[in-house]
């Protein structure tokens, strides 16, 4: 069955960038970032299982400024993917497709992600976590 010459739908660069399409790309991007970030969770757990010296080294790396910077963006990507994922679940249920609803639920997802990120870092830094 020849499939090479079938017409293709217009590709991404044909469309005008929009708030909703931008958020959609960010969702996918955040999913990939979360996969990479989860390696840090594995690293932390393995170092905790490996003994005090390995754990202190992991804490020093993750608690350094570059470490905290990476963790901050990991947490932001994690919460964005989580909040926007809830938006996707509503779409899967057939709700929220109206243009203004989709626009505003996107704003809510971004606000939720930023809010959760700020709160979790306030919790981490005030309880002495930091990592």
């Amino acid at each position, binding site marked *: 069955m020849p499939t090479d010459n079938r017409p293709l739908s217009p590709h991404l660069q044909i469309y005008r960038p929009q708030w909703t399409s931008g958020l959609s790309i960010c969702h996918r991007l955040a999913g*990939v970032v979360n996969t990479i970030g989860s390696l840090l969770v594995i690293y932390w757990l393995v170092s905790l299982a490996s003994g005090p010296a390995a754990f202190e080294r992991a804490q020093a790396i993750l608690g350094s400024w570059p470490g905290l910077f990476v963790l901050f963006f990991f947490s932001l990507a994690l919460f964005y993917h989580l909040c926007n994922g809830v938006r996707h679940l509503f779409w899967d249920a057939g709700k929220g497709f109206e243009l203004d609803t989709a626009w505003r639920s996107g704003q809510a997802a971004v606000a939720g992600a930023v809010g959760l990120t700020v709160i979790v*870092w306030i919790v981490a830094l005030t309880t002495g976590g930091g990592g």
Partner: protein
Amino acid sequence: MNLRTPVKEARGLGSAKGGTHHWLMQRVSAIALLLLVLWFAFSIAINAGGGYEAARAWIASPITAGAVILLLAAAFYHAQLGLQVVLEDYVGNKAVQLAAVIAVKFLAVILALTGILAVLSIAFGG
């Protein structure tokens, strides 16, 4: 003249009733992760800074250990489903795509297992 029925022609080419499984499992794991990730993010923010002994005691408690194991299983399951779609969308070369998808699935199992074994060794290692 083709005497085969349309069903016979379609068999083996289509979804064979499994077409929605990937989609559905992505949603089911997402719902599990919704709770597990929120719990883990705030728990580790509270518990990570208390030093080695405190961190071990936190992970070793049965509820934490159980929830972290569920988190790792659900997270890497969800991750490999998502990365599979990304690779299928962007990698044009079918052979490279297949190899990449298989590599992602192997890596997901290895990483999840590594994390789970770390948790278990902490939980049972005293």
